[in-house]
């Protein structure tokens, strides 16, 4: 049953009753005088119209509901829906309508409602049951409620809270200094200590302001240096970004990232213990110099390179005097910082030293952009002399470097110099790079690459003699032609003992290299595939990756044609010969044995006193 609450209008002619419902749609009804054919009694038939509020105002009636009594008896056979008996008409019209009106309520049975076609969705005719009109004359339904003044922030917050949202204001960026200090203190309030990922705090020498150590980084859509990247404790970081040099004369002297003072003019907080005494950033401004030295570490310049001359030309103590200057004659900015590398020496949870290596360069205005590199690395103070960062403890971590070593003399139990497994870097033209441009192999990451070795083909027979040596040198880590002999089983293998190092296997098909005139160099090995076998060991809940073998599988010898290809050699008569590399990691993990002990069998017997319970 559906109820429609209405508003009574004035009576007209003592007979017509009009009323209106605005219960989110209009419902207008009025009575109409009709006469029964078998009795001259007046009968009130209701005509009602329903429309939504908008169309009602426009005076348009889109839905009509007729009391079925509106049908004439003459129509009862012809009109669909007008099948009503004479007796029922009399009964319905004669008495019930007036009685119901007296009770200010009238119901139309579902069968007495006719509905014409309409697309208005505001009223859904009930699938079953009656539609009742209730005259309550409640005027509040017809008007909006009088709004109260919204005069408190809580009221403004209510709609947002209801939708579990915050008001649309720019959210303040989290991670203020005091919040970081509070978080560090919450870790261990009695003895605060830096943990991995905590920011590195600095105190600027000029105004004693506490800051986080950051260096420029690129954003998401450009390589420009636009955003700061924080350096976090025990988290090595690399950043490479560029500056536009279209306003070089101004930027040269104003851009702080071109000046070395921006990277050295501060001290680094040694330990988080200082925060137990000074726990707000504002309190650091009033600290004396002597007190400051007790809990800070100065930045120590260790290396300065002038890339223009590619020599260590400036003494470290003179570095702060290297201030960028602009030469209008050459449109060049001199003494600009090109690269910065911090090395943090740590002991447990404290920083014991900060070393800085800076690279200077000149910025030429014609270059369009100036690239800067920033690096942060961490070195343990407890293992002096070994700056090789380990790759896990004990198992290799995904993405960490693979440790290898070269045993120069296997008969002597000497310490083995550890290194990272790497491939030659790529020079900008695709050539096999030198030792400074190595591409470190990450654990678990397969790699395919090639680089080119330039061979002078003016005399093919001479070129063939040295070709294999050149290619093997390119395949080795440092260009020496020597390959590592051992690999670290675990990520924490140290250089000070031979334990934990297993030999690297090699598979190479040896064939006599020969020169076949006019220009074919036969049986040349042009590539190597480094296949690393690893397994997970230890508890299933805490697996540790272990390297169980490394195989250097050299490609089968092929013929190399020593002539410039179609289109000619790139540089005169230098033929680029491609050297191929592939690195693959294969998992040889053996699953745990699904072995279970036999379940004990149970023997069921009746109680001994079953037959003689007494």
């Amino acid at each position, binding site marked *: 049953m559906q109820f429609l609450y209405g508003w009574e209008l004035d009576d007209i002619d003592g007979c017509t009753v009009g009323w209106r419902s605005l219960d989110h749609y209009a419902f207008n009804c009025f009575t109409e005088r009709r006469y029964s054919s078998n009795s001259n009694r007046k009968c009130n038939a209701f005509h009602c119209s329903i429309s939504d509020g908008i169309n009602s105002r426009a005076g348009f009636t889109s839905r009509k509901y007729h009391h079925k009594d509106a049908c004439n008896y003459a129509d009862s056979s012809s009109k669909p829906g007008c099948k009503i008996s004479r007796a029922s008409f009399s009964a319905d019209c004669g008495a019930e309508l007036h009685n119901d009106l007296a009770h200010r309520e009238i119901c139309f049975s579902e069968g007495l409602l006719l509905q014409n076609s309409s697309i208005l969705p505001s009223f859904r005719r009930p699938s079953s049951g009656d539609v009742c009109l209730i005259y309550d004359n409640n005027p509040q339904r017809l008007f909006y409620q009088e709004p109260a003044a919204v005069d408190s922030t809580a009221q403004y917050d209510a709609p947002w809270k209801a939708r579990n949202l915050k008001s649309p204001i720019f959210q303040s960026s989290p991670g203020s200094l005091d919040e970081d200090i509070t978080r560090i203190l919450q870790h261990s309030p009695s003895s605060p200590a830096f943990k991995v990922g905590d920011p590195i705090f600095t105190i600027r020498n000029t105004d004693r302001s506490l800051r986080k150590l950051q260096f420029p980084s*690129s954003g*998401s*859509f*450009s*390589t*420009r240096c636009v955003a700061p990247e924080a350096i976090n404790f025990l988290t090595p970081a690399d950043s*490479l*970004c*560029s500056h*536009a040099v279209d306003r070089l004369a101004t930027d040269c002297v104003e851009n702080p990232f071109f000046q070395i003072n921006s990277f050295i003019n501060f001290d680094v907080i040694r330990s988080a213990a200082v925060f137990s005494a000074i726990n707000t950033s504002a309190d650091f401004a009033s600290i004396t110099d002597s007190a400051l030295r007790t809990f800070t570490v100065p930045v120590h310049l260790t290396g300065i390179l002038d890339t223009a001359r590619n020599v260590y030309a400036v003494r470290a103590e003179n570095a702060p005097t290297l201030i960028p200057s602009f030469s209008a004659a050459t449109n060049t900015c001199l003494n600009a910082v090109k690269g910065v590398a911090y090395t943090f020496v740590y002991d447990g949870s404290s920083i014991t030293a900060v070393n800085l290596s800076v690279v200077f360069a000149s910025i030429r205005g014609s*270059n*369009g*952009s100036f*690239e800067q590199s920033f690096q942060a690395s961490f070195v343990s103070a407890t293992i002096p002399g070994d700056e090789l960062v380990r790759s896990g403890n004990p198992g290799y971590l995904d993405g960490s470097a693979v440790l290898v070593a070269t045993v120069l003399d296997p008969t002597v139990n000497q310490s083995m110099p550890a290194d990272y497994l790497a*491939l030659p870097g*790529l*020079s*900008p*033209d*695709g*050539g096999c790079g030198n030792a400074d441009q190595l*591409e470190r192999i*990450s654990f*678990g*990451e*397969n*790699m*395919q*690459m*090639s*680089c*080119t070795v330039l061979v002078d083909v003016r005399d093919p027979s001479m070129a063939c003699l040295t070709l294999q040596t050149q290619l093997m040198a390119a395949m080795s880590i440092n260009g020496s032609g020597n390959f590592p002999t051992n690999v670290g089983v675990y990520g924490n293998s140290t250089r000070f003992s031979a334990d934990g190092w297993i030999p690297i296997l090699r598979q190479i098909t040896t064939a006599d290299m020969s020169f076949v005139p006019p220009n074919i160099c036969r049986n040349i090995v*042009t590539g190597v595939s480094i296949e690393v076998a690893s397994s997970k060991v230890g508890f299933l809940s805490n697996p540790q990756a272990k390297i169980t073998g490394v195989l250097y599988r050299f490609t089968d010898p092929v013929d190399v044609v020593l002539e410039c*290809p*179609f*289109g*000619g*050699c*790139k540089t005169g008569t230098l033929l*680029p010969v*491609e050297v*191929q590399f*592939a690195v693959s990691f294969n998992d040889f993990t053996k699953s745990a044995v699904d072995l279970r002990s036999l379940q004990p069998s149970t023997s069921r017997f009746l109680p001994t006193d079953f037959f003689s319970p007494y």
Partner: protein
Amino acid sequence: MSYFTVHREDVYKDYKASPLSAAAIFQLVLFAITIGAPIALVAVNPDIWPMYTTVYEQPFVRYQQMVIVHLDLAGGSSLAWSTIPQYNRLMGRTLRSSRLKTKEIDINGDKIPDAFSITLDVPLTAQEQVFGFTFLVFFDFILQKRTFFEMSTVVSLQHSAASAGADYFADGTLRFVQKDSLRPGFSDYINKDPLVNISSADISDYNVASIVRRVATRNASTVLDVSMPIWTTTPVPTQPFHIEANIHFPVQSIWMQTTVLHRLTTAGAAFTFWLLPFWLFCWYLRRMVFSSGALFLVQDSSKYSMKSYFTANSGKE
């Protein structure tokens, strides 16, 4: 002393009639209704004989250790590289040796890769700027649960821009596209043919359009859906052009033909569903008609009935 039921069993009655009697015809009609009506309902409903079905399976996608990349540089020149040595030899001066890193990611440890990460660095000289690229990565696409289906497929990443780029990043999902249904238990060896003849010295064999055409003519292929590629501008001179893509291998819905067993099982279940009400209806009707004596027949109690028991033992006492 009170009694209770300690055992209950049916008492059978035999109603006998001649084969041409009304009772026999009545029984025949009821039997025909019991069996025939469910069969008719099953036969007219096409859903009961499903010719196709959809199964869900995560494909085993295996990197073929093969890529081809082509960079469009400023001024109309280009660079190319591949993991196919023969292709690189054909490239001549266009060849630029590059570095490719790949990683299969198995999140749930079920030995089926859930995603694949690929990173390509193409070194550039200071004068070279990239305005567009085409990057093809070749995979094996294997289904092995309901059918053994294996095909070679290729993922194509392509982008061009008005400004020079430094990096390109894409995160996409590999989607299986079928033109025809797969047959259960059928091995599709045709699609296993490699898309590229890596020993060919003919450059037309490596043409991207011909590779795509080869894929398009197959009954099944894959499409990489990349919704939000990111093109990073303002390259740093001499820094490599960097392409990074993560490709996810989710569970695919696979359009398959049904097995004969599948069809029989489905139809059998439907037949049983309809058989039950008709059987009950006929059972009640049969019982009502015969017990009321509406039809002429000879009633004979079975040998297990109480009547026959007492009849058989009446002379012994």
